């Protein structure tokens, strides 16, 4: 059993580090983990649930706004992107945040207009959608590893990223 726990802990450690190295997560996620304690053992998953709810809602808003056959209000799209950028920044979702920065610049670009701007924004939106879903899957895998460690009777190791 000890060998199993050690193996799971190693897997968890390596997987978590890879998420940072691949740019899925940044230091803000580490801050979230540090805030979690015995009194609030589900704090991180609670905050991440709020983040993924934000993603669904805001991406849906933006998709609707960009789907209009009439005039697209790019400032409204930009406002939703700004909100999503804020949320992703708060949870340490680095890749999503980076995409939101590009997306916002796209909304504010003065050298494109009409259909071309709409097309570029739609492309940005598609990338954000792909990226948040990829992050969600990665984090679910990480939490599954945590669960396996606990079920095997082990302790989830603190992972030092630096």
């Amino acid at each position: 059993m000890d060998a199993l726990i050690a193996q799971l802990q190693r897997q968890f450690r390596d997987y978590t580090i890879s998420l940072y190295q691949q740019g899925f997560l940044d230091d803000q996620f580490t801050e979230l983990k540090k805030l979690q304690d015995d009194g609030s053992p589900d704090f991180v998953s609670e905050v991440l649930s709020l983040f993924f709810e934000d993603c669904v809602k805001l991406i849906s808003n933006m998709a609707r706004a960009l789907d209009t056959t009439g005039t697209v209000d790019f400032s409204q799209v930009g406002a939703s992107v700004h909100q999503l950028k804020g949320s992703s920044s708060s949870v340490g979702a680095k890749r999503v945040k980076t995409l939101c920065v590009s997306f916002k610049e796209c909304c504010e670009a003065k050298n494109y207009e009409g259909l071309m701007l709409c097309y570029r924004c739609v492309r940005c939106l598609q990338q954000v959608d792909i990226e948040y879903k990829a992050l969600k899957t990665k984090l679910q895998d990480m939490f599954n590893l945590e669960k396996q460690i606990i079920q095997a009777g082990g302790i989830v190791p603190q992972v030092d990223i630096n």
Partner: protein
Amino acid sequence: MATKSTGGTEKTKSIEVKKKLINVLIVDDDPLNRRLHEMIIKTIGGISQTAKNGEEAVILHRDGEASFDLILMDKEMPERDGVSTTKKLREMKVTSMIVGVTSVADQEEERKAFMEAGLNHCLEKPLTKAKIFPLISHLFDA
């Protein structure tokens, strides 16, 4: 509706202000940020209450009974934004320390206008213990 949560002192040092825990009002329209800031305040030993926008924050102070050591004020909110709320609270003679919470995208002029509304200090999102802790400690030293 504003909500309350009580801070614990299990593992971290409490910051005491005149022999009491710091009482904090978190004003933010984003439920994620409200939860995050609640937890930060809890882990540094404070107790917090939340308001979803500036209008709720003003209503809380209307009867003159509210007494917060610190107000964390988001800048961009519906109904009443952070600048307007800060101005209003100062007009109502609220003497709580008000710390504005801005976005990295905010321009310097916007931050300046926010400060001039009556903030004591301004911090950039995302907030962390490391950003808030020294600020509170310093400002409450006798």
